């Protein structure tokens, strides 16, 4: 059983490494937001800057730089807002944790309210 897992894992790793350069470049471009566009990734945008960024990604891959290094290069220059998926730390934690915290709070509030409604009320006793 562990051998089967090892083979699957090795196949996955080797296929990722053997991905053609263009495909790897496209995958990275999809993880970067175009800095001069509205809601488009570098892969989708037809702006000149996005085209230049796609070329830069390819050149960096050819130089043997990895995905993380390339994303970090752009994030250092354009800020982390350029990342399509913000990293799970610092200010960006709000984007990741915020919705869950609000959901949790809302659910708690709803449960409390329902409990209060369904609690049997004490009858007033007139003396």
């Amino acid at each position, binding site marked *: 059983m562990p051998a089967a897992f090892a083979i699957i894992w090795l196949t996955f790793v080797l296929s990722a490494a053997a991905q053609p350069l263009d495909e790897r470049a496209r995958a990275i471009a999809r993880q970067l937001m175009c*800095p001069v566009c509205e809601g488009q990734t570098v892969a989708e945008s037809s702006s000149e800057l996005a085209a230049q*960024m796609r070329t830069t990604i390819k050149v960096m891959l050819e130089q043997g730089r990895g995905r993380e290094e390339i994303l970090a290069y*752009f*994030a250092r220059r*354009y800020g982390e807002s350029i990342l399509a998926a913000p990293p799970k730390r610092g*200010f960006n934690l709000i984007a990741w944790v915020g919705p869950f915290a609000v959901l949790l709070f809302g659910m708690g509030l709803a449960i409390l309210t329902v409990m209060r409604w369904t609690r049997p009320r004490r009858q007033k006793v007139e003396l």
Partner: protein
Amino acid sequence: MLATLAAVLAVLGLAVARERPPWSAPLVGRTAPDFSLQLFDGRTLRLSALRGRVVVVNFWASWCTACKQESPILQWAWQAYGPQGVVLVGINVWDLRDDALAMIREFGKTYPNGPDPSGKILQDYGVTGIPETFFIDRAGRIVRKHLGPVTRELLATQLEVLLTGTEP
């Protein structure tokens, strides 16, 4: 439950306080990325060779109206502050060579200007639009990034600060 929410907010607050806010200009305060610029006149300019001097790097294009608006001001700054050791570098981006040369002639730009056809320098500087101007101190650190056309007042104030450490 309120205590849990307060704890989550406190953790977020701490994490945020330790980080540089995402809206701040990422390169300000850092060493200016080095570049080698092939100038229109054939010479080559390397930024690292200018260490020890105040440098103003301006990104521009001939089709950009705001770039035209600031051109006489940049030329004025070059003439006024060049003798004091300030170096002005114009980096022409997203443009055609002939159009860029025509604009250099039109405004009588005499400071070093060169094209960045691959966009390597503009990406190294995180440029998102033009004109964009970077002020670099004698230690080679970016002290200010200005978006949009520069004014005479802005240039004078910033350059006086960089040259003398005091505002005019």
